């Protein structure tokens, strides 16, 4: 198994607040990792650190053995290999659906307009949004926006896709359409890191589940291990709260 990302002793503090404490973590190609945990446990910060949207306070992030947390590394070049899907979609509101999926390819990957369009259309069709290419983000629903956001990330041909609570801002009836797109991606062998509250997704789709609590990785393992036979008391408590809901 090829090691894609390795995180060593990663810490992040906001002022005096220590959000991530000495995180060690490895992502292999083809992994589908769900990161679960209570709000404020540092899941999103971990993901944002991996994409360098937050600068880690200390520690290393090795991408193909190269430390990208080093200031000499150009963050924007690294980010073009790592896709990110946000809770609030963050589609460019001045562009149509199609332009949203083309602009990165043209400006960052320097592809021709025609080539960018072909790729954009391919992925938009894949997420079922091809008929809406001329719509502006404000004209489509939340679930549709998130599917476009996934297509936009895929069009950059990333090596790993990060999902930051992709279904948390959606109405319940739209969660399914986004999850099914993600499930299909996982089946195709896309490497994915998913911060989520969807326990069913974590249990059924992921290859590994990571439970975070108060800025540390409390427990991790296969979905069967973690959901079937959690070792730590915190994990048991957290999962029990979800079962009660």
């Amino acid at each position: 198994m090829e090691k894609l990302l390795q995180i060593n002793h990663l810490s992040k503090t906001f002022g005096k607040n220590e959000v991530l404490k000495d995180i060690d973590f490895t992502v292999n190609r083809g992994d589908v990792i769900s990161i679960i945990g209570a709000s404020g446990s540092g899941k999103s910060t971990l993901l944002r650190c991996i994409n360098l949207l937050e600068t880690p306070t200390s520690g290393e992030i090795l991408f193909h053995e190269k430390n990208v947390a080093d200031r000499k590394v150009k963050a924007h070049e690294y980010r073009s290999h790592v896709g990110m899907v946000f809770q609030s979609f963050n589609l460019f509101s001045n562009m149509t659906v199609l332009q949203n999926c083309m602009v990165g390819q043209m400006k960052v990957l320097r592809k021709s307009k025609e080539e960018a369009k072909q790729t954009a259309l391919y992925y938009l069709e894949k997420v079922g949004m091809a008929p809406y290419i001329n719509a502006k983000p404000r004209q489509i629903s939340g679930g549709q926006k998130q599917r476009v956001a996934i297509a936009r990330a895929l069009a950059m041909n990333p090596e790993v896709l990060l999902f930051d609570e992709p279904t948390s801002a959606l109405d319940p009836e739209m969660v399914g359409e986004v999850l099914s797109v993600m499930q299909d991606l996982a089946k195709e062998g896309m490497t994915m890191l998913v911060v989520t509250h969807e326990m069913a997704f974590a249990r059924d789709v992921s290859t590994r589940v990571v439970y975070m609590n108060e800025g540390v990785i409390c427990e991790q393992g296969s979905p069967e291990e973690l959901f079937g036979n959690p070792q730590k008391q915190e994990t048991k408590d957290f999962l029990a709260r979800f079962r009660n809901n």
Partner: protein
Amino acid sequence: MDKLIQLCQDVAKLWGKYGESYITGMQNTLILAVSATLIGCIIGFVCGVLNTIPCSPGDTLIKRFFVKLVRALVRIYVEVFRGTPMVLQAVFIFYGLPYFTDNAVQFRGSEGIWIAALLVVSINTGAYMAESVRGGIISIDPGQTEGAKAIGMTHVQTMTNVILPQALRNILPQIGNNFIINLKDTSVMFIIGFTEFFATHKSVAGATFKYFPSAALEMVGYLCMTLLASFLLRWVEKKLDGDSSYELVQVDALTMSAGTYNHPDKGSPFDERSKEHGKKGGK
């Protein structure tokens, strides 16, 4: 009623005799206001962008120093030109530059006056626009910046492709405001001998002593110009907003053009790459 009729007659007389002067004045006012607003917008955008260069404590000392320096310079520029009357700025620059350069730089002839007037009004508009643009940029949801960064865009690419187009739309009403203010306030340029619309009034009234009829004519003239400007700006805003509806694209036409034609028996291109389809094909 008699007075009104008399006024109309006086205005008509003035127009008959000096109509051309009034029109030339209006033309000069319009040209100066339009070009100064455009140049001012460019200055404002540059200042607004310079003011929003990201700077974190993690950056090198040199970078932080330059960012702080640029911000301070922009701040001084904005405060000085926003905080003094334009009529005084005109005098200051028109007479100040020759004074300081021992007449090496002079605004000679009508061309010189044009350049001086354009310079003063542009710089003044720029100072106001710098703050509008800064406001326009910080009003854009930070998520837009994150979305752009996440697909690997640099700061400059993020600005030019994502943030500035949205900021421009948001500050368009402010640009309109500035344009209308410029239409009227270019009148203070008579102080350096610029012959715009109001200067025409001064010379016509001076020659005919018909102060009030000329002023009435000017009032109507200015109002026409500003109303036209408001109307045009609203139209531009609507254009920029684009259609409120969109057309669904026929999937068939689309897939043909994308080279991924899907057939019911073959399934979608999605299926072709998924494992399940592979199994089916293997049978």
